[in-house]
């Protein structure tokens, strides 16, 4: 790790004002390891952990709001989340291991847009709105490729708004080493609108599987996906799974998500 300065922000305004060329520090579960490996060298860190405005989970009967600094374990165990969108609580409970879930935050995860992270699939399938210090961004516009998002320099995510769905579930096939998603599929149904979002597999990050959406829109059941194969082109291949295996798993996980939703 190189040396850096540290500022514990007291508010959203303070954080945005003081970050400068530096970086926000949330749970630190991505940022700190990359700094320790000397792959990132921010000279200044603005710590979000003491910003009260960034904490809390609430629901107004149609929209679930999760503030950016909510830890995965908080989302997983929240009665509000379990009541509003139970599949989202389950997704959070399946992230990493207990240490990761008690440090990592939804804001950090989504800002980072790791192609193997879980939350991006939920954001995209549920049509979430990403609220920042300066604007509101639709999930459809937010994820722009590997570790790339619509966030501007210094833009701070403050909250996520998840509109309720009739059905939602996420099925994840873990990378056996890292426990991240080798393939994760989120399926959401809201009236006649069905969205299927795939994480882990795409070499360009999270994406929607429109073929499956069409099948499920006409018949929302696992069997509707029988015989449907995802294409392997544009998928990742590595020592944990070839593109072809990932394509196969997309089909299997989509069915499992549809069955569980």
């Amino acid at each position: 790790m190189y040396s850096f300065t540290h500022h514990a922000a007291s508010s959203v305004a303070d954080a945005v004002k003081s970050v400068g060329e530096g970086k926000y520090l949330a749970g630190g579960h991505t940022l700190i390891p990359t700094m320790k490996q000397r792959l990132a060298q921010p000279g200044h860190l603005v710590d979000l952990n003491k910003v009260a405005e960034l904490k809390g989970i609430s629901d107004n009967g149609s929209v679930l709001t999760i503030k950016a600094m909510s830890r995965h374990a908080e989302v997983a165990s929240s009665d509000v989340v379990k009541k509003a969108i139970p599949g989202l609580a389950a997704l959070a409970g399946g992230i990493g291991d207990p240490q990761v879930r008690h440090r990592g935050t939804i804001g950090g995860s989504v800002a980072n847009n790791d192609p193997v992270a879980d939350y991006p699939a939920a954001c995209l399938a549920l049509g979430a709105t990403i609220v920042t210090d300066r604007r509101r961004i639709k999930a459809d516009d937010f994820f722009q490729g590997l570790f790339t998002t619509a966030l501007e320099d210094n833009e701070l995510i403050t909250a996520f708004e998840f509109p309720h769905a009739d059905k939602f579930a996420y099925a994840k096939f873990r990378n056996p080493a890292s426990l991240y998603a080798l393939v994760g599929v989120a399926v959401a149904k809201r009236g006649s609108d069905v969205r299927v979002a795939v994480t882990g597999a795409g070499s360009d990050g999270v994406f929607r599987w429109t073929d499956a959406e069409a099948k499920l829109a006409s018949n929302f059941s696992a069997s509707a996906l029988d015989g449907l194969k995802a294409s392997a082109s544009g998928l990742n291949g590595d020592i944990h799974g070839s593109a072809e295996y990932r394509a196969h798993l997309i089909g299997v996980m989509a069915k499992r998500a549809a069955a569980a939703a």
Partner: protein
Amino acid sequence: MTATGIGAPVRRKEDFRFITGAGRYVDDINRPGQAYAYFLRSPHAHATINKIDTTEAMKSPGVVAIFTGADIEADKVGGLICGWAIFNKDGSPMRAGAHPALAIGKVRYVGDHVAVVIADTLAQARDAAEKIDVDYGVLSAAADVTTARKAGAPTIHDVAPDNQVYDWHLGDKAATDAAFAAAKHVTKLDIVNNRLVPNPMEPRAAVGEYDIGSDSLTLYTTSQNPHVARLVLSAFIGLAPENKFRVIAPDVGGGFGSKIFIYAEETVCVWAARKVRRAVKWTSDRTEAFLSDAHGRDHVTHAELATDANGKITAVRVSTKANMGAYLSTFASSVPTYLYAPLLSGQYNIPAIYAEVEAVYTNTAPVDAYRGAGRPEATYVIERLVEVAARELNVDPAEFRRRNFVTAFPHQTPVIMAYDAGDYDASLTKAQQMHDVAGFAARKAASASKGKLRGLGYSAYIEACGIAPSAAVGSLGAGVGLWESAEVRVNPIGTVEILTGSHSHGQGHETTFAQLVSGRLGIPIENVSIVHGDTDKVQMGMGTYGSRSGAVGMSAIVKALDKIEAKAKKVAAHVLEAAEGDIEFKNGKFTVKGTDKEADFGSIALQAYIAHKFNGQELEPGLKESAFWDPTNFTFPAGVHICELEIDPATGVVTIDRWTAVDDFGNVINPMIVEGQVHGGIAQGVGQALFEGAVYDSDGQLITASFMDYTMPRAQDLPSYNVGMTITACPSNPLGIKGCGEAGAIASPPAVINAITNALGHENITMPATPEKVWKAAQASAQKMAAE
């Protein structure tokens, strides 16, 4: 059996300190004025070093010194050694390339040591290392044995232009070929024994220190055998004479073999401490551990098994290519030879065996002993062969094994080993009962109704441990003897210190060794302390590996205790005013035959030291004895493991549902500790079978250099084990014990793979059997079945 003697499940004495964080590991040791070492490592698998420019780096804040291989060479300090000479088929010696602690002229693997920076803080050392300018001439690399042996492959060491380290064989080739020619059936199998990274919980570390007043060195190091480290660093590398060199291996957090070896880092730390006149500390980070700890296994094998018309095995023929990595590590050469081929007879009566082994240099980290060392590789070969042969012959795999078991002892195999005692049928029968093999068909049907495939696999393993008779290993090329030493110091009021050359790094010696003494002397277990891991305290010893601490280390303690008892009886005879021949010792009491006179152990110890009751010229005061034990044979733990698992054919995910292990470890000192060793060993074996595998790309970059890519087994991946025992006492040591430290890791990989292939009806799959491989195999198998 007493409450704390042999056979009692005594809780581990050492666990309080380990669990409460009161252990003292090398990284916990900080010496006054200590500086920190950071090793600049090669980013290339194979390159010449044209120039190293340290000018800018030397100006970096906090830098104390920067050294390269040239500095060590100028000090006339030698390179690292390989301590086991192997000879080629034609009798010529193996081709061992030089292994400088810091590279000279060339780097040979990613992680090879280019320079060391010593600075006031570790961060400063790292900062400075980034400013070292190395001019590399990148060469093409050979990252696997096949590439390295191809014509035109890059030469890694000039002494071995074609990268062949040796070309060795064992057994009677003519007899074996003849048996194959006459065979009714031949089973053939291509096997890869995957390369593993040891990953002990505590990474390696070293603190070197120089005392100017006594002109002596001290090295704190994460070692399984501190005396051997001192011997090598003194006598071969030439850092200081042994009397001016202290090596301390305090608490060590696991080793699995990887901490047997003498590495570059500790050599450099202790050498540099004298140069800079400050203590020098290095602690490996996890990435360095992946890159530079000696890896394990990595064999590519073609194996064949011949059977006659009665389904009896008549011969086994094996050809193995073993990856040695870029340099020969301390015991590397012995692992794919004498620790491997002599076990190819398994538990079976096999009249003819021939094995040839080619050891190959590659541009990868050195490969050496890892839990089981050679025996897991041999067991995997024979237990896969036997399983596949049984299936090909349409015989139940358990029956096929039974038909071929060795049943009479001693049994001389055609490959060196003389099995001394065992009852293989007893372990198999007991394992089948405990496992409820009879209920397998019903469980398989239940799985099938859920769309799952269920399989059952056996592994009937044998291993050779209690390593080892010195003269025997000497005749096979070992550079050292493999006896063990012990010293028993009885204090004046009867408490006892046992000084042992064995080293405990997780095995529980502080408990088991104390049990032996507590039971034998009839004293409370709290009154016995075990001292180990310090060359200034303990006389020469050989350390811990090869499941030798019980069979060899404790035997030395028994021998010393015999002497203690004999001496104490002499003292007791004076104290109790009786003839020495009339003194009996039992349950901690000396009695005089036929009288009610008695004295307890503590009072006799006191009398030995105050020496008032006997003539100090005729009987020496004091009560302290030492002994060396050199075994007369290897020991042969054996047993049967049964793995039963379920496969989800949609994803290829394997879930182990039951595991039964029945082991014959001879007599058992502490059944709870033994069971723990079995559990840990199985976890490691399951890790090898399903998850672990070090992967280098064709340029020699380690792809699996962190836990994000190298899969370790987790608790959730493992079932609750069913562990049982059968016992045949080992005849070659006084306690009748065989050793249990490696058995689980040796037994388990073939059990898993036999179970998977049983479930799939598919004859081969390579380890690690990842979900993708299993899924593909399941597809192929389903297609084959559909076609039939």
